[in-house]
């Protein structure tokens, strides 16, 4: 670890479903609930939009933890999307654990549009967990984020 733990702030990525969890996060905001600002939220149409590649790429690009949040089972806007997420997520989480990624870095949660409080709680606890774990060593050596050469850049490949 190059940086001292004091300077280091966890950097999290949250994939929130448009219909429930994103609205839940919005509710937490409009209700003035306080939670750590470490999570970068990415809005997705449905939690099943989150390909496992998204999770891997986030970890590799410098995220220390990834949250996937969607509607409660049975409440999916598209009726069944989160049932697929539920199956996939369990498999990818166990696979990543097997390959040496700490299981606490990847989490899923069901947060409805009315659960601003739950969103606040989930994010706060997640940030605390990651703070204890320290930076993710999944990215290239020494915690440096790898910036691709110009010829390797693509629309998804650019680090900003």
């Amino acid at each position, binding site marked *: 670890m190059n940086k001292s733990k004091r300077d280091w702030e966890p950097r999290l990525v949250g994939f929130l479903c448009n219909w429930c969890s994103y609205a839940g996060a919005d509710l937490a905001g409009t209700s003035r609930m306080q939670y750590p600002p470490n999570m970068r939220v990415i809005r997705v149409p449905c939690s099943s939009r989150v390909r*496992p*590649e998204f999770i*891997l*790429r986030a970890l*590799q690009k410098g995220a220390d933890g990834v949250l996937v949040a969607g509607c409660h*089972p*049975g409440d999916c806007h598209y009726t*069944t999307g989160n*049932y*697929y997420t*539920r*199956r*996939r*997520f*369990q*498999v*990818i*989480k*166990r*696979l*990543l*654990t*097997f*390959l*040496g*990624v*700490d*299981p606490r870095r990847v989490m*899923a*949660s*069901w947060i409805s549009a009315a659960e601003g409080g739950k969103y606040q709680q989930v994010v706060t606890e997640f940030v605390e967990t990651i703070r204890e774990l320290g930076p993710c*060593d*999944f*990215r*290239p050596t020494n915690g440096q984020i*790898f910036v*691709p050469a110009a010829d*390797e850049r*693509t*629309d*998804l*490949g650019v680090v900003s």
Partner: protein
Amino acid sequence: MTTIQDELRETARTLLAEGQVDCVLGWAWEEELQRAVPCFVRAAEDAKRLIWDERCVVSLAPFLLHMKRQLSSVRTEPSRTAIVVKGCDARGVVRILRDQQLERDEVLIIGVVCQGVGDPDNRPAKCRECQYHVPPVYDLLLGEEPKETQTPSSPLLERVREIEGWDVADRASYWREHFSRCLRCYACRQVCPACNCVECIFDSERTRWTYKRTTAEENMIFHAIRAFHVAGRCVECGECERACPMGIPLMEINKKVASDIKELFSVPDAGVDLREEPPLVRYETGDLDHFV
């Protein structure tokens, strides 16, 4: 006494002579390479080139697909290919059929009863724990069905359990060591019957999920995505590991995913039933929810 090989040659000759199939895909011995290679027999008199014995290690299932894709631009009339399969290869053919890459009537499956391939004193791992000496799906079967069937223990699964028991940091360094050797030659993908996408995401020009450089981290992304893309569809034929020039134990990853899926969703082995629905493209409302 007629051997399976004699039966196979006679069957292939008859099928071609009667015009039931356009091609028989089997193995032939290549003297120069000193190994059994895929052989596409199109004329009845060439059926004598086919062999069947312990040297027939390579799975022919992916060649069915390569052949179809190469010929699709020049051939318009429907064709039918007979393919010779061992138990493990038959599951690969089921995979390709079930993924709707080929129609069922485009393929005639000639199953052979197999007691293991390769060096008898040093069988591949998959043969030591084989449960499918008789192909689970076939149109014609050559050889005697064995009387007694016993489920062997699985050293591979024990190995997976052992790795699971390690510390996270130990697992990370174990895989880092293996993945740092990966050349990203994609041989594991090319030989895989489950990797049958027309365009693989790793070949995509626009969305590049991994960079070209072969660092341990990039390679890990590749292997994690590869394992997940065949999750629930991997037929555990072990071809990826056999093809790997760097000796990366890929079957440990595949076995891990397969055993997890079996445990979580109580599904049968992949590739034994033509009507199967891969476990990750369906769901039960009562699936486990404890991880959330």
